[in-house]
């Protein structure tokens, strides 16, 4: 091996050199071409920070192409956890936010991080259960009252038990009621929404679910919608522009354009019918121009 190496070196040293130079040049050229094609960023872009649950419904996949077509802006939708979306806004790293955490959003408004906060839409959690309804909660207007009857009658209740947003909402209702549920009737699934619904269906139990997942799984379930419309069960979505006066690098015009787009009659109309073709019912209820305190009444 050593022998072969030394002869190849002595015979073809200049050739190796030339070959090496060509290869290096070729590599550099290739890298440059790649870098240019990969690196070019469009100038007019809007960064929208939103929550994964919003993006996962697919609503934005319908709305954003319309916005881009209309305004010529390129929207970068960054779907992250609620906490991260709000943090991106409060650091000026996004141009516009679409979130459903009103209490935390108001803090950003108070700090002057965001402006032009507008009510867009809501969707809701619902209490579902067997058609026989042993706890007699059908048609109740208060989620707490329904929970109270379920626990009083020791009817089976299946909880997510996974510390998700839905589980937190459930715990908020129990807290409002002033009790901590426990007993054989209270089943902690430790599972996602779809699986929790299946368990509730098989055990003839009640559960709290978001409307979208229930509609998606409805055909495989023996569960009816029993309680809906209580204000505590609503997820309320606001759009807000990150304040360009506070963060000079924020795209103020683009953020404002998107916020106004979300409350425009055209978009509100799309929201009101989104999901009907797939589930038979809409996933969201458009609320632009309404007073947030009137929701759930």
């Amino acid at each position, binding site marked *: *091996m050593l022998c072969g*190496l030394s002869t190849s070196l002595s015979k073809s040293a200049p050739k190796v050199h030339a070959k090496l130079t060509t290869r290096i040049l070729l590599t550099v050229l290739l890298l440059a071409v790649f870098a240019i094609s990969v*690196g070019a960023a469009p100038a007019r872009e809007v960064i929208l920070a939103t929550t994964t649950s919003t993006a996962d419904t697919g609503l934005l996949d319908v709305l954003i192409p319309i916005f881009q077509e209309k305004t010529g802006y390129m929207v*970068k939708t*960054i779907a992250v956890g609620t906490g991260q979306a709000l943090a991106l806004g409060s*650091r000026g790293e996004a141009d516009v936010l679409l979130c459903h955490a009103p209490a935390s959003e108001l803090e950003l408004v108070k700090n002057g991080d965001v402006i032009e906060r507008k009510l867009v839409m809501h969707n809701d959690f619902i209490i579902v259960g067997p058609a026989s309804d042993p706890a007699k909660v059908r048609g109740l207007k208060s989620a707490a009252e329904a929970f109270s009857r379920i626990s009083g009658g020791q009817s089976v209740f299946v909880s997510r038990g996974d510390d998700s947003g839905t589980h937190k909402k459930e715990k908020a209702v129990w807290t409002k009621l002033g009790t901590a549920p426990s007993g054989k009737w209270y089943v902690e699934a430790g599972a996602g929404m779809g699986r929790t619904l299946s368990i509730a269906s098989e055990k003839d139990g009640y559960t709290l679910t978001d409307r979208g997942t229930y509609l998606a799984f409805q055909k495989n379930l023996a569960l009816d919608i029993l309680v809906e419309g209580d204000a505590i069960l609503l997820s309320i979505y606001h759009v807000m522009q990150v304040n360009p006066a506070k963060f000079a690098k924020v795209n103020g015009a683009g953020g404002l354009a998107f916020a106004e787009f979300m409350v425009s009659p055209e978009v509100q109309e799309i929201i009101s019918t989104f999901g009907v073709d797939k589930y038979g019912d809409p996933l969201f209820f458009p609320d632009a121009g309404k007073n947030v305190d009137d929701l759930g009444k």
Partner: protein
Amino acid sequence: MDLIAEGISKAFWLLVKGDRDVFQIALLTLRVSGLATLISLAIGVPLGTALALGRFRGRSAAASIVNTGMGLPPVVVGLWVSIMLWRYGPLGSLRLMYTPAAMVIAQTIIALPIITGLTMSGIGQLDPGIHVQLLSLGATRLQLVWLLVREARLAVLAAVIAGFGRVISEIGASMMVGGNVVGHTRVLTTATSMEVSRGNFGEAIALSLILLCITLTITSCLTRLQQKGGSTQS
């Protein structure tokens, strides 16, 4: 079982019909990970060779850093690259956040220590006599590196395979610095994760199968190159 069959048939139809979105996602995946691997190769091979042969102060400390870097968690890289590239970060004026270029940077940081480290150990395993003999034959420094890398090509190709495999399969860094923006920074891993969270398991399986096919194809090409190199060596 139904789910697997659904996934496979979805993948088949997506490929056969030449779905434009999937094609674009697959192409971007290849471009980003391929470019990151090439840059890591261009820097990592000379660097690994220098670390294997060099006799300078701090060499063993540098070698330890490289070896530690081989296990860098992608989310950690993603976080640090984000901090640097955010608008109000030190490199914010470059406006690279949420672009494919940002993903290339993050993936290069992930692949570079792997390629450097494996090159270093490959070159280090060569008979130290070769080094001396080549120098005594009058090889220039550049020729020396080139010939040693040729000698250690099995190890260097293994380094490329390992580096490419790591970056094409990572998700943490791509998700954080790319943002999974549709049509812009969505790659196969981030798209798969998103479809899972949307409950579209069929699409997710289809995307994962496409990713596996791409990785398998590229890796087999590199492996063939490696085997060929190995057989002509002696």
